[in-house]
């Protein structure tokens, strides 16, 4: 079990900056994110786009903003559970919040901060009837352990980097690899495309372009066959052990929807000035919240996080009074001392 002060769900820019502001008040943080890397939308959707409206930074690439935020919070040494989805919320007998992830990690703290953005990034599932029936029984939306596919017949669908990379990685492990792509051209790193095409020419990858998987067939034991519809060959079946559709990720509110929080279609409703939800001790900041005048901007999320931690402090230290200090007054030494005393 992990014990902390603030449990932050979401390691996007706002979740990350929350660690800094909490750190100034000597509060410890643990972040949970379904993505394997921090940065939220910045790193998952537009890492190489320049952002122009971060005060004091005329232009900064999204991924560089994440790198800078990580450097800024590094002295406060936050905990991270990456690649895990916050699944359930409970109140313990001692009055703390307890969050359990889909991987079984348990995190306890007095305050929960939802910096969950537009939701947890989940794989996009192609609209194939019957697909849900075989999830985990032959249909995988991401590759966790390549060894699982040793000496199996697998079929990967998609035309981007992850489809190409896994094709290249699994070709030496699986018995056969088929790559199905809807168009002729692939997007993705040119050298991966070239490598894949070479393998296809050599007959090691079974490449099907201008084709789509339209149906999945099997029985209670799992997936047995996929139906492929191809411009060139029409519709036909192919026996396989695993079907791995790789069509990128999309944010979904997910389990948080069932936590009893008041939400609208714009997000989780919070009260001002502390961005607290209808449940005391649970806050929502950044893209995940909504209130009158809300703008879904990074800079607004930073501001919300700064005010929110002032109130979070009272939940953690009800008998202490906060004194306000500029970071310039603390100086680097002061910041470090704070961080070390956490």
């Amino acid at each position, binding site marked *: 079990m992990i014990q902390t002060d603030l449990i932050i769900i979401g390691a996007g820019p706002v979740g990350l900056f929350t660690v800094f502001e909490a750190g100034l008040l000597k509060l410890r943080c643990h972040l949970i994110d379904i993505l394997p890397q921090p940065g939220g939308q910045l790193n998952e*959707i*537009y890492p190489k*786009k320049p952002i122009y409206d971060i005060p004091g930074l005329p232009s900064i690439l999204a991924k560089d903003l994440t790198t800078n935020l990580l450097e800024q919070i590094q002295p406060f040494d936050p905990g991270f559970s990456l690649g895990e989805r916050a699944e359930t919320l409970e109140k313990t007998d001692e009055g703390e919040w307890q969050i359990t992830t889909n991987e079984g990690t348990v995190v306890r703290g007095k305050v929960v901060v939802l910096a969950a953005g*537009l939701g947890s990034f989940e794989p*996009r*599932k*192609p*609209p194939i009837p019957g697909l849900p029936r075989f999830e985990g029984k032959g249909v995988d939306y991401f590759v966790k352990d390549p060894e699982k596919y040793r000496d199996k017949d697998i079929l990967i669908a*998609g*035309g*981007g980097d992850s489809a190409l990379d896994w094709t290249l990685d699994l070709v030496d492990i699986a018995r056969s690899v088929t790559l199905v792509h*809807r*168009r002729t051209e692939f*997007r993705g790193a040119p050298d991966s495309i070239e490598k894949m095409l070479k393998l296809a020419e050599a007959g090691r990858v079974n490449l099907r372009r201008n084709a789509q998987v339209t149906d999945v067939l099997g029985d209670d034991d799992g997936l047995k066959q996929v139906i492929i519809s191809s411009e060139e060959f029409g519709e036909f079946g192919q026996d396989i052990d695993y079907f791995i559709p790789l*069509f*990128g990720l*999309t*944010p979904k509110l997910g389990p948080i929807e069932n936590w009893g929080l008041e939400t609208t279609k714009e997000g989780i409703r919070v009260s001002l000035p502390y961005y607290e939800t209808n449940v005391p001790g649970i806050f929502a900041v950044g893209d995940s919240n909504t209130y009158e005048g809300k703008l879904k901007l990074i800079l607004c999320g930073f501001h919300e996080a700064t005010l929110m931690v002032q109130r979070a402090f009272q939940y953690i230290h009800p008998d202490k009074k906060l004194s306000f200090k500029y970071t310039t007054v603390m100086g680097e030494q002061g910041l470090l001392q704070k961080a070390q005393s956490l």
Partner: protein
Amino acid sequence: MIQINIVDREGVEHTLEAPTDMHMNIMELCKAYEFPVKGTCGGMAMCSTCHVYVLSDTPLPEMGAEEEEMLDQAFFVDARSRLGCQLMINEAMDGLQLQLAPESD
């Protein structure tokens, strides 16, 4: 002002007045009329939540590489598919007929 027809996801047809002088695209038009179009990426051809089918033979701007690549990852795509956010509203679009593509999972 021009007129654009949009068939929503329930099959109901709507005629919308669309301004041509506000540098607005079809995704933004849909949002302005409160259609259930998310526009998650803000119109950067990076999410496909603004996917529409073009039903009329109205002349439209050519598809750029970014639009083509995004449609490539979208679902329910066919020859009529476009991303609404890449269709900047202009005079030549008067009478354009569109249908919202189904929302994908």
